């Protein structure tokens, strides 16, 4: 089967199933095999059950996958801001030693605004042992507008923030770009299904390739399509190398 010329580090992925549409081949083994066939060598993932049902089960299922494929998976930890502070802290303390990246805080599915108190509590915990935080954003969703992240990015300069889906829609992309231009600790995420012609190149031109991380959002999205957007005309080999590998290797401290 085909492979890219890059050793891809995937900073935004999941495992599991979803209620709204069928996710096929979602067994851990199948996701690993598919991702490897695309040239992905490391994948930071969290279980989808975290976002719609329970973060206790979710983080445990993520941990199980990590244990089975320790050479491939990086632990993406999830915390739910609507839980009590004690519950959040206990879960944080239980999983933090294994967490590579907080992937992802999900205001839309947890139905909790990014600017809400629960997220501040979570980020106060994370700042004690700062690791990158991927936050789902979508300008069309009232809880996860990318502009709401700016306050947090400013407040926690020691935490690298990845603006998940880079705002997700026209209007949101522009806001995400402006934030990433402004703050050293802010990054764009390449995972979004609306692959507008010229958008990836615009992002690179505006924020530089060093500030974009590759995300497949597998198995939510098709990983090959997410890779394909980096092959649009005008994107150089050098910039692909940074986005596919180098930036995440540095941020996630992968040797």
């Amino acid at each position, binding site marked *: *089967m*085909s492979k890219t010329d890059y050793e891809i580090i995937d900073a935004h992925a999941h495992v599991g199933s979803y209620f*709204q*549409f*069928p*996710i*096929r*081949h*979602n067994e851990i083994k*199948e996701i690993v095999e*598919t991702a490897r*066939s*695309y040239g992905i060598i490391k994948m930071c993932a969290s279980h989808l059950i975290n976002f719609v049902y329970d973060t206790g089960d979710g983080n445990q299922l993520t941990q199980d996958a990590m244990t089975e494929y320790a050479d491939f998976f990086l632990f993406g930890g999830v915390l739910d801001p609507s839980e009590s502070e004690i519950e959040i802290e206990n879960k944080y303390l239980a999983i933090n030693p294994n967490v590579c990246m907080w992937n992802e805080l999900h205001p839309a599915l947890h139905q909790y605004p990014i600017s809400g108190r629960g997220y501040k509590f979570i980020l106060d915990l994370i700042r004690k042992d700062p690791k990158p935080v991927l936050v789902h954003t979508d300008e069309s969703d009232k809880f996860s507008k990318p502009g709401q992240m700016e306050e947090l990015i400013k407040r926690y300069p020691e935490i690298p923030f990845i603006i998940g889906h880079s705002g997700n829609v*026209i209007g949101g992309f522009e806001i995400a770009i402006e934030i990433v231009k402004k703050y050293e600790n802010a990054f764009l995420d390449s995972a979004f*299904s*609306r*692959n*507008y*012609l*010229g*958008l*990836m*190149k*615009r992002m690179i031109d505006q924020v530089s390739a060093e500030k974009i991380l590759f995300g497949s959002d*597998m*198995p*939510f*999205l*098709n*990983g*090959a*399509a*997410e*890779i*394909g*957007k980096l*092959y*649009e*005309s005008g*994107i150089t080999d050098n910039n692909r190398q940074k986005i596919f590998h180098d930036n995440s290797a540095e941020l996630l401290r992968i040797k």
Partner: protein
Amino acid sequence: MSNIKSDLTFFDCNVFIGRHQNPYIDSPFNISILEDTMIASGLSGGLIYHSASFLYDASYGNKILLDEAKGKTEFKLVWIALPEYCTPETNAENFISQLKKNKISAVKIFPRYHNFNVVTGSLDLLFNFLSEEKIPLLADQEEISWEEIVYILNRYNEMPFLLQNTGYRMERYIIPFFDKYKNFYLDISRYQAHGGIEYLCGQFGSDRILFGSGMPVFSAEPIMMMINYADISLKEKQNISSNNIIRLLGNE
């Protein structure tokens, strides 16, 4: 020269020219820009309509499509149809003869944007002709209801119906169409489902799955890569990337 290494030929079933609402490239997207973009992406050709037919007036846009695409053999042309072109008293015969005369390869409809409903029978005369001639009818998923699609597929089973711009979350709607209607075809320009192509090929074969980009709004490379990397046979990939649309347009 495409950045994507592939032995496949890609013919795009979902392209338009003219003004558009993609803020990341210049507007209008005229035919020479389309040609340059296609060369850069490694596409051999495309099935195209003019956005003026959609945004302003169908007959105006259909005419300027002919003018702009004149002599461009890599493109097959799509005209937009409206109910008022298809009444017995007025224009049905005229519209149909114009389709024939200008070698129009497919017809597209926008029922929501153009304010009509297919189930009223307002396009039946046209659909009869398209069925007889086996000319494909195209519609975007957000522009037509599921009930209208059922109406079309039930009555016109000789007319290929190509559903375009269908999102990856819509699979539970589209599977029954694949299952029940042999004249149902899917453009995969927005169908970025994990394992989706593999599933459709396994269940229904590769003959009714078509490569499309959605240019100039969307980029071709993600869908090209999705086909390139799919865990299906080379023959199935060739069907999806170009053979199916070429067969549908009667150019095999």
